[in-house]
């Protein structure tokens, strides 16, 4: 797909958007109470500590909702494609809206375990998700 809008990178969001270069899904976390939160912000939404920063999440998640986009919104868009809101295994109220890959439209389901995979475009590594195929190190 050549239609590919990209995000503006800021100091706060750079760790999220370039973590894929080293295969890391980086999500902000409070160093005091250990709460994860997204999008990045300078303060913990739970304890209000400002001692926060990006940490590496497992990249494991669960599908919370999905849609199958059929309409081509730009001339060079390939359809259909599957969009999802996924909940991170670390903390279920931390969610990412994402596009699914290696996932047929009739395969997607709420509750499906998924894992991150990165697509590099220019200076951005987009965290896309696919049906979980690998087991995490702590499980093996």
């Amino acid at each position, binding site marked *: *797909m050549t*239609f*590919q*809008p*990209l*995000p*503006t990178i*800021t100091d706060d*969001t750079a760790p999220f958007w370039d973590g894929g270069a080293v295969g890391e899904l980086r999500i902000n976390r409070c160093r005091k109470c250990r709460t994860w939160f*997204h*999008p990045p912000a300078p303060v913990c939404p739970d304890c209000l500590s400002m001692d926060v920063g990006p940490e590496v999440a497992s990249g494991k998640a669960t599908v*919370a*909702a*999905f*849609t*199958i*986009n*059929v*309409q081509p*919104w*730009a001339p060079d*868009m390939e359809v259909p*494609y599957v*969009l*999802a*809101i996924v909940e991170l295994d670390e903390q279920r*109220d*931390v*969610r*990412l*809206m*994402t*596009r699914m890959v290696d996932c047929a*439209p009739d395969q997607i389901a*709420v509750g499906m375990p998924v894992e991150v995979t990165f697509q590099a475009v220019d200076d*951005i590594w*987009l965290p*896309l998700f696919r049906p979980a195929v690998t087991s995490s190190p702590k499980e093996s």
Partner: protein
Amino acid sequence: MSNAHSHVGERDAVISGIGQSPVGRKLGRTGISLTVEAALAAIADAGLTRDDIDGLSSYPGAVDSSPGMSPVGVPELKDALRLKVNWFSGGGEVPAQLGAVFNAVAAVSCGLANHVLVFRTVTESSAQTAGRRASVVGSGGARVSGPMQWMVPFHAVSAANWVGMYAQRYMHEYGLQREHLGQISVNARRHAMLNPRAIFREPLSLDEYMNARMVSWPLGLYDCDIPCDGSVAIIVSRADAAADLRKVVRIEAIGSALHGRDSWDQRADLTTMAAHDAAPMMWARTDLKPADVDSAHLYDGFSYLCLQWLEALGFFPKGEAAGFLAAGESRIGLGGELPLNTNGGQLSGGRMHGYGYLHEACVQLRGEGGDRQVAGAEVSVVGAGGGPLAGCMLLTADR
């Protein structure tokens, strides 16, 4: 019973006049031309003159980045009419589209102005003709920032995608079917056929709804509203400054709350929206109940958003949309228990972005609905917005 709020300041304000330009596809007119026509109509409707208007308010202010979405801001109308205002406000960081009305209500209630002209203008249909699709974020090629950066790079570029995900989760959770959403679309068309100013006026059957092309599952073509050109203006007046005006509609209560996160993807319960925050606030400011509502005018930019408003406002218990909507016309039709979107909504009437509902609620409460009049309408509810955006108003007839 007493209200939880000691002072319900919105009752110090009224809607004293309404105006609407032609609303249609590719009207070939500028935004300011449509706006002036609506504004002059509203001023005349109220029985006021240009010199009486001492406040201006609009949503979301002039927007250059999204063609046709809001071509006219407060400064342009102020200058065109050479208004001498004591208070004015325009912008998008408010409780959805009606936020500009709430601001006007606050301004007159605290005495900063007597008669505020509130307007909303769109030329999205003409913008589409010019080859630029206003509703597709990121199509301009520039980098995206703010909340859009968490959705658009993944090709979640349209509100149809975002709303589609919420609708899918509700279906998963509560057994909603597309047929039930279709009742909202078919109902809107039924009412549009009775409204000479609606855009789509040919009959629409549930079969046609079901067989139409898919946009973003579970939302199909007829779950999505129609971009249009048009302008709506209303006059919000201080109640005691409007004592001798003849077409007053009273403001019983406003709901402007947003307790959940201001985000399409981080809301704790994906089967609710900001409407579930705004609506309880509105009901807490009045002794009226959902059963008192004679007509409902609820945002149907997508059919599913209308379902969310119905649920948030308490017209059925959480999760029971399917049973409520299955009754179809006998429930939400003109002669039904809760006549819904009597002008055809945005699904068949055109995307006036929240202001068509407010205009129509006033029409109903003034008994001016003609073929689509709800007999004896005295209480109407208006709700606008979807996702993290919501604002609602309970309006009553001046009787």
